[in-house]
């Protein structure tokens, strides 16, 4: 018996006014799999990521995230699905500026468990694993871009999500920082989560087990027959 895919999207459509931004997209991502999504600006990559992350609702199609259909859930249950099942990494301004790196990482865990001290301990351990222990108490706005992105990855992982969605996670980083962030992201798959990375960078895409391309709201490569692929180390 196999477990349900981490992401199972079928025929997703999203329209804004008279424009179809996502046009019948189907996508399946299994646990432990890493998938990159490339395409030109405005082709619908981020919109698809937001649909999969339940930050937006599709106009048509079916979507299952870790076996749950977010389109049938109320706002509070979708919020719960996001905090317990999903992790997000955005391109920039990922952190709450008034919080320290440690607090940024701990916040989602505190929200889930209700126990602050335990969340802080877990956050400290994660930061340590990503080589950021010395920067744990630095305010978010004084971290370098690379450090901030690694903190964001740590925050995305703190609740052991089944799906991590990353939108241009290395978009504004130098190569050294990009490698550090990608190392952190591939760690996600090693821990058993599905990873979907939106990127313009072929180098980043190459680090993923499967590469998809979008154009004008459609996935150019049919996805449904693709076998799950493990992330490359």
């Amino acid at each position, binding site marked *: 018996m196999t477990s349900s895919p981490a992401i199972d999207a079928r025929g997703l459509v999203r329209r804004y006014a008279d424009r179809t931004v996502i046009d019948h997209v189907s996508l399946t991502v299994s646990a432990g799999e890493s998938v990159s999504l490339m395409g030109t600006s405005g082709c619908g990559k*981020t*919109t698809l990521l*937001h649909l999969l*992350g339940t*930050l*937006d609702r599709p106009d048509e199609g079916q979507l299952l995230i870790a076996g749950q259909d977010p389109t049938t859930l109320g*706002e*509070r249950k979708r*919020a*719960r*699905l*996001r*905090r*317990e099942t*999903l992790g*997000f990494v*955005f391109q920039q*301004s*990922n*952190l*709450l*500026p*008034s*919080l320290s790196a440690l*607090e940024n990482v701990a*916040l*989602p865990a*505190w*929200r*889930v468990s*209700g126990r*602050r001290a335990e969340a802080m301990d877990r956050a400290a351990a994660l930061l340590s694993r990503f080589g950021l222990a010395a920067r744990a108490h630095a305010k978010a706005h004084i971290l370098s871009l690379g450090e901030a992105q690694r903190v964001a990855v740590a*925050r995305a992982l703190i609740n052991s999500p089944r799906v991590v969605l990353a*939108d241009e996670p290395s978009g504004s980083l130098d190569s050294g920082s990009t490698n550090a962030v990608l190392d952190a992201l591939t760690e996600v798959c090693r821990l058993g989560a599905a990873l979907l990375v939106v990127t313009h960078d072929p180098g980043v895409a190459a680090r993923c087990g499967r590469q998809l391309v979008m154009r004008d709201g459609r996935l150019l490569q049919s996805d449904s027959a693709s076998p799950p692929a493990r992330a490359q180390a």
Partner: protein
Amino acid sequence: MNLRIALFLARRGLRESLFSTGLMVVAIAIGIGFQVPSTANLQGYRAELLAQSLDAGFGDVRVRPNKGLYLRDADALASRLSRLPQVTEATPVVGAVAQVTANGRSSSLTLFGVEPRARFHPYRVVSGEPLVDSNEEVLIGVSLADRLGVAVGDRLKVRVLLSSYPRLVLDDDGYGDYSLLVRGLVGFGASDGAFVARSFLAGELGDENLASAVLIHIPNHENASAVAAEVVQAVPRSVVRAWIDDSHYLQSSVRAVETLAQASWAMGILAVGIPVLALLYISTLHRRRQIGLLTAMGFSRLDLFATFLAQALILGLAGAISGGALAIGLVRYLIRHPVFNWQAFVIRPVLSVRDLAMTMSVVLLTAVAAGTYPAWRAARLDPSPILRGIE
């Protein structure tokens, strides 16, 4: 929803922009700090107006004769009325038309005979000595003394119409002439009046038990109508009027002051509510990206609403405490340095702990209410366009 997280995020959010946070706290503090002393001054004015007009005036309830100019056997009547519930004192006064002359100047007035030993008198002495049982001395109003050019220790010529009946005015015994020593000066409402001992004036009028009215004083001026109703039962053949029905000017003045106090209160609420609403709304717009991130982290609309409402609560508390301290300081200063002090009419702010606590609570609630709309907007923001940076 976790309230501790909401408070934590609210505190951190406020620290993010200390300038706008400071502005909001100052707006609330100033709202309380100035509204409370302003209302306290109006309350003080109301209290002084009532005290001058009733305690140092013609009482809360006035009993006058139903027929003729005078009440007979007024001492017994006053004694009976003073035993009624709520009555602090019932004291007879007698009045007679008179002319006072000094330094070649004269003035016509009603000369009042009062009980020197009574607790309440229809005047306040501003200089000189209080009246004693004497047929040689008079208290006169400050304005009258000024017009006549007399001071304490000077003598006045007083001609009193002693007859109750105008046809007797020209009779030899229809009036009395007296030379009286000015024992003291009285102020404000009595500044054009003159007062002698009742025993003297009533005696000259032919009956020491005579009174034009019995003035009833009660501790709570608001109960005057109820006490008047009881007095009517006790003395059915007299004209009994509570000050509310007898002094329309005073009643209108008190109502005007109460209206001004309510308007001042409402202005204070608006002065707090509008800036807090505006600044919190601007803060919400400024922090849309953070709201999007919190939504992505799994914070629900209720979480976001609670976080932004907690900001308003913290601001309201900080502002209310600072404003309360400012208000107490200003009220203390105004007690020492009254805004109005003339002829024994002194406006000192009246502030009770209950009033202060109520104002602080209302302003705190106003701040929270003003924070509700921005909090609601924060909770309703669509995270997707915000996180894509297109909103």
